[in-house]
């Protein structure tokens, strides 16, 4: 543990989460019941998977604005394929996710263009495909195929399957980030791309892999969302883009890359989920959520950014 970890600003996300829990317990006496906590974990599960992926991207100093569109595409694609292909459909959707990430990564690294502009462009493409696939209308999964998504909706020892799936995915990628060479390269690229190139790291390949990893997780998130709703909906993804990016930034991962991690993003996910939950309890309209998420994202981005690393800000 180096000195940087002891800086007070690194504990702001945890403190925020703690204060939120206390506030919510005061406002809502039923907050700390098993039933309520269970529903909060279920609410947070898809977001946990998304923000785990986005963490890898932001750690390299990039951003992915196409995740919302890709969730929509994944959820529609699985709805179209599942009745025809059965369990094989999940595999196809995951593969499509990886392919989408590959396209993002290749255009970013070969074209030498910032990730936000490329992913803005590809988000248009994914969303279009989603709309074309379902002709603009949500596709409900007919009851005779419901057994295919049973693995997402059950419970084991009182813990919902979706929560177990989400937590084990997070644990797996926490391990990938912290204990593999790939993870070390991710941090290295975020800390200094030029130095990483000079020390022989295949920066372009690692960045492309990071985008593939993220998009694969996003496609998986789309599948889980489909499982929760039992329907593929092209409009469903848009509402996940801001929370996914906000939770990574609120968790304290540095926007310029190189500092942060999966654990922080999970703290961020729970901050976002609890704020959402709290706003419902107090009776603030759901419309106001975007205002709150946008504001806290800007505030936390300002708090956690290491400004010594970049000379000019664009």
């Amino acid at each position: 543990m180096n000195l940087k970890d002891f800086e007070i600003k690194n504990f702001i996300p945890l403190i925020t989460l703690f204060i939120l829990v206390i506030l919510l317990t005061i406002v809502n006496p039923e907050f700390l019941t098993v039933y309520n906590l269970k529903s909060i974990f279920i609410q947070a599960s898809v977001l946990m998977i998304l923000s785990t992926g986005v963490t890898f991207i932001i750690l390299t100093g990039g951003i992915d604005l196409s995740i919302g569109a890709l969730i929509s595409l994944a959820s529609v694609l699985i709805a179209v394929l599942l009745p025809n292909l059965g369990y094989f459909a999940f595999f196809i959707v995951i593969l499509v996710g990886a392919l989408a990430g590959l396209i993002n990564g290749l255009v970013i690294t070969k074209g030498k263009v910032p990730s936000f502009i490329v992913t803005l462009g590809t988000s248009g493409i994914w969303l279009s495909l989603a709309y074309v696939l379902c002709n603009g209308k949500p596709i409900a999964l007919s009851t005779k195929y419901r057994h295919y998504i049973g693995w997402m909706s059950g419970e084991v020892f009182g813990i919902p399957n979706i929560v177990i799936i989400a937590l084990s995915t997070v644990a797996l990628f926490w391990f990938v980030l912290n204990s593999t060479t790939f993870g070390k390269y991710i941090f290295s690229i975020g800390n200094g791309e030029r130095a990483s190139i000079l020390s022989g790291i295949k920066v372009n390949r690692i960045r492309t892999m990071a985008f593939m990893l993220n998009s694969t997780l996003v496609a998986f998130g789309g599948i889980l969302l489909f499982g929760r709703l039992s329907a593929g909906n092209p409009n469903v993804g848009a509402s996940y883009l801001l929370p996914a990016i906000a939770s990574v930034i609120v968790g304290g991962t540095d926007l310029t890359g190189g500092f942060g991690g999966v654990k922080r993003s999970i703290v961020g996910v729970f901050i976002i989920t609890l704020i959402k939950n709290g706003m419902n309890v107090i009776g603030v309209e759901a419309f106001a959520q975007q205002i709150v998420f946008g504001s806290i994202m800007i505030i936390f981005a300002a708090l956690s950014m290491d400004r010594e690393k970049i000379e000019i800000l664009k």
Partner: protein
Amino acid sequence: MLSFDNDFLKKLKKYDYTFIVPIVFLIAIWVTIFTVNPLFLNLRSILSVLVTAVPLIICAFGVTHVIRLGSIDLSIEGQAAFSAVLVSFLLQNNLNNFDLGFWAVIIAVLATTLIGLLNGVIHTQVKIPSFISSFGLGAIATGAAILIYRGEPISITDNGFRGFFTNWNFNIPNILFITAVVFIFLYYLQKKTIIGTYVDAIGGDEKLTRLNGIPVDKFKIISFGIAGFCYGIAGVILAARLGTGTADLSTGLLLNSIAAVLLGGTALQGGNGGVIRTLIGAIIISSLKTGIIVLRINPYFQEGFIGIVLVTVLLLGAKRGKLVINK
């Protein structure tokens, strides 16, 4: 003879193809449209394509200055939606008793100008990259827009207001005059004022500009303000055209506007380009969409097609950039 050849080749190499290629592309699109459907070959249908493109053209004008700085503005949709909803809220409508007439337009445009300025202030003073400040602020503006009407669309009953934006005079739609005024204003800013000069300087080399004692932050904030002003006008036009104010009126404007700027040949790294190029880029985008309809391709492909065009432009422009490290 050889020297002539060399000179000619040099001239060819020096020539800025980023200006001529979009025009050729535009002509190709229209030749295709006319070939497939000769009925399009009249002034009225060409004008109507232009009219459809107006909100896009004006938003793209706004973001041009920001991109010339080397920055980006992702709050286009949010700001345009906020302006559209605010103007319908303040005009004579079915929900409340406000009837501010043209004051509503002024307030809405002023409001987005302030949001734009705020965007610049957050970016330069709080010191976070413009893509994240504008992403956050765009979400806030969208949220504010939805909060104003709480999910219930506002119908504008002020026919004078709608007429002003939708009528034709001298066989030309009114909003084309408005667009021309905005264009001339922005072109003047870009070519004849220090704002334009310094915006180019900042986009070209921000460090050097700062070292020369130019108040970089001030000009950045002004540029974001001008952008907000444009989104405000675009939002008002959207509301006037449809007669209702909702937050999803502006859907697609972000991708389309940025694609229009880059397609026109303004470089993402900043320092060059301008509103004339953006005008051409925006007309190309709008013509492409018309082309998709004329060719009877599924209209849901429109946005995806624009996305493909944007990605292609980014790949083609790869060698032109000065950006070595990209984030």
